């Protein structure tokens, strides 16, 4: 299984632990990754201002992957949503396709909708499969309650992104439960993390984040789990800011899914970058020892 790895802009600059942990996990389950150096921004940040610029940026990435005849795997849900949307438009909107391909042709590129875009989680769930992942599990967590945060741009608009059931999604929960952790029910599971407004309307952004954290905490979560750099930075770096600005007291640390899975697979901790998160997550390892203790007690 080979994919072109689409990292986007945030991960290499600010979330190296996501890249290194995801690479390590994918290597363990025999997914080969190809790096395409020429990839650019997915276009998501300019969608507010210019539709064509957004489609062009995404389509250029798709064209680069198509040139290598590779499907794309994205670690970011906003990149995923943008690439899927652009892919859809390039297939459906003939006049836009002509316009975009005209610009792309200046550097010998063209995109006619010939590849697939996948998110990291859907590759693990659908391509690799739960059974294969289970075989690679080294040790399992006990009594660990995880609140999965799906992220908007993989779920909606469901007709275009086609990730999972938009109302009752389950693949992330199943992936979390492979590690022995329990994926809890919480009412705000499918809500936005608040990141799209961070830097634009900070008060509103913090309100939304805080509500989610409070809901997760109340529902009994020990940790949040994400698979998107924006969501992760919002729940980690921005939560840290909220804790200091607002002095609120419902800290709920967040970790990236490949960090959780990687721990369970027994991958080296340096690769998982546990220490690189702003809010400490190393405590999660205590949930491994519980099992041994219980056995001892028994």
């Amino acid at each position: 299984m080979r994919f072109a790895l689409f990292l986007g802009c945030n991960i290499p600059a600010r979330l190296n632990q996501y890249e290194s942990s995801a690479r390590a996990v994918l290597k363990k389950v025999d997914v080969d990754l190809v790096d395409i150096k020429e990839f650019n921004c997915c276009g998501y940040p300019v969608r507010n201002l210019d539709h064509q610029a957004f489609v062009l940026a995404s389509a250029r990435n798709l064209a680069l992957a198509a040139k290598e005849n590779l499907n794309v795997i994205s670690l970011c849900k906003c990149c995923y949503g943008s690439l899927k949307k652009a892919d859809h438009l390039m297939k459906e909107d003939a006049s836009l396709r002509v316009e975009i391909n005209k610009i792309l042709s200046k550097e010998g590129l063209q995109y006619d909708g010939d590849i697939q875009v996948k998110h990291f989680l859907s590759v693990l769930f659908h391509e690799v499969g739960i059974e294969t992942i289970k075989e690679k599990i080294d040790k399992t967590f006990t009594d660990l309650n995880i609140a999965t945060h799906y992220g908007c741009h993989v779920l909606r608009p469901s007709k275009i992104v086609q990730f999972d059931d938009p109302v009752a999604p389950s693949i992330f929960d199943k992936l979390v439960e492979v590690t022995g952790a329990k994926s809890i029910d919480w009412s705000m599971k499918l809500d936005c993390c608040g990141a799209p407004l961070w830097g634009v309307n900070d008060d509103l952004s913090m309100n939304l984040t805080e509500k989610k954290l409070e809901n997760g905490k109340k529902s009994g979560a020990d940790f949040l789990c994400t698979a998107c750099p924006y969501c992760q930075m919002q729940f980690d770096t921005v939560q840290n800011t909220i804790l200091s600005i607002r002095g609120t007291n419902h800290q709920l640390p967040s970790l990236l899914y490949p960090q959780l899975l990687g721990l369970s697979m027994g991958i080296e901790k340096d690769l998982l970058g546990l220490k690189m998160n702003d809010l400490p997550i190393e405590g999660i390892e205590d949930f491994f020892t519980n099992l041994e203790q219980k056995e001892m007690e028994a």
Partner: protein
Amino acid sequence: MFFTISLYVALAIFGLGLVYKASTWFRFNIGVETGKFSAQTRVSKAISGIASVLFSVKILTLIKVFVVDVVLQVRILRQDFLRWLMHICIYLGFMLLLLMHALESFITEPLFTDYYSTVNPFMFLRDLFGLMVIIGIGIAILRRFIFKVPRLKTNAMDHYAIIILAVIMISGVFLEATKITSHTEFQVMVEDYAGLSLEDDAEEIKALESYWVKEYGVISPNVKKPFDTEILDQGKESHEMSCAECHSRPQWAFLGYSTAKIISAVALGLDKANMPTILWYLHFFACFIGLAYLPFSKMFHIFASPLSLLANAVMEKEKSDPANIATRQVMELDACTHCCTCTLNCSAAVFFETFPNTNILPSEKIISIKALAAGKELSEQELRHIQEGIYLCTNCNRCTVVCPVGINLQDLWFNVRESLLKKGYPEFFALSPLSFYRGLMKEDGDNYQKPLDKTREAIADRCELMKMPDKVLPLSNIDSAFKGILNQSDQANTFSGCFGCETCSTVCPVVANYDNPKEVLGLLPHQIMNACGLGLKDLALGSNMLWDCLTCYQCQEQCPQGVCVTDILYELKNEAVEQVKEKPLMERKL
């Protein structure tokens, strides 16, 4: 005499230029904070900073960076082998020519007692180094003019650099070629070194001349091939007595010799026209111009780039003195060689294809920032172009990682962006996820929130209806052109399905956040859909809701009528910005 005067003039301009340019490092300011430090403070901080590095373990880092990045230029090699070959050829070739050939009386002669420029290995090496530079120039021309690399910009300074190097090299090679073929030169040498006089030793000179025509490429008006072996033997005898000691065979000067062969048909004419002297002047003047103009041209990077690499290796944003960071950032502008590695790797460069603003490209931003730092008066339009170009950056840090001279570009953009935003011009990109990084980096103070408010005001300012407290709708405000635009778009025309059930507003987490959402957000999503249906452009475009939309797609997903609510909000945002941009700059209140 003339030669000496022009050399000293060139040296004087070069020296003063160096002092002037280095002084700008301490005088010019980039960004918000730097004005706080006087030039004097910056000089003394720099001296103490350098001293503290030199007398610490960091000296090892400096040595490593000097060898790996300055001498071997591994950072360029990591990017592209061809470009590394180009640069190493030019820089190594030129440096060796400078030391061995240009400074021969200061370096080579004292070092090697048997040095003559016409004796091997020096004669061969001179042409070898020259060939290296010429290969380098050739690759540069290929890259800049033949390969059509998208978004690689070539400016006047890049042309100058290639031309001045090419003139120096080509004049040098032709000078060598015309001297090889020159009969006049031969006669002068015969009189000066062989002790033969033209009248008394005609026979002997003829023999020597024949030998030199046959073996050394001289083109003579007197003797012609083929020659008798007897004469050649006689010539060889005189040659070995008087000439051989100082002259290796000319074939070793392979560039000059092959050029001499090419021009042999016209060599007599060139010699009569005194071409060697003309080329000699050309060669030297090109060198002097290159020398005098060096501090003001991009060639100044030969001083600034190594300093930038070394400084960035031992400086850290949080730990280093802010005065020294200010100085380093100005110096980095001189270190830039406009190689465009940043632009070719830039995540946002692709947007240049749709936004006609060269400041989007990092390599071109640097040029604008140079003008800003030098305190040049820029128009509102120019300033806003720079601001837009700098804001249209995803802060992915790639430019900084790849810069061959180690410039911390990301910090530079951030610093300049904040100082430009302070001027109070609205920045539409501020209302986009591009602001995420700015949010992460925020510090307390007014300067953070102001640009965001200003931009919202600039957009709302265009929407008269929105300002009315009670929105009694005069139907005369229907804008059919606006409705037409929405109808043309496949996703926007779905608004016509809206039957006002308010599901979109009910599920919206932003609406849910406020006790009195209309007060804060203006129109709610379902009302915006209505405004679209009624063609009330001002209402559709002027509401805060547009910019507070999370794009979480809850509304669109749950709409029973299949209205693409979120996508419509996207289109309205595009439209709102377009509308403000269209308004002439003068009219706008700032």
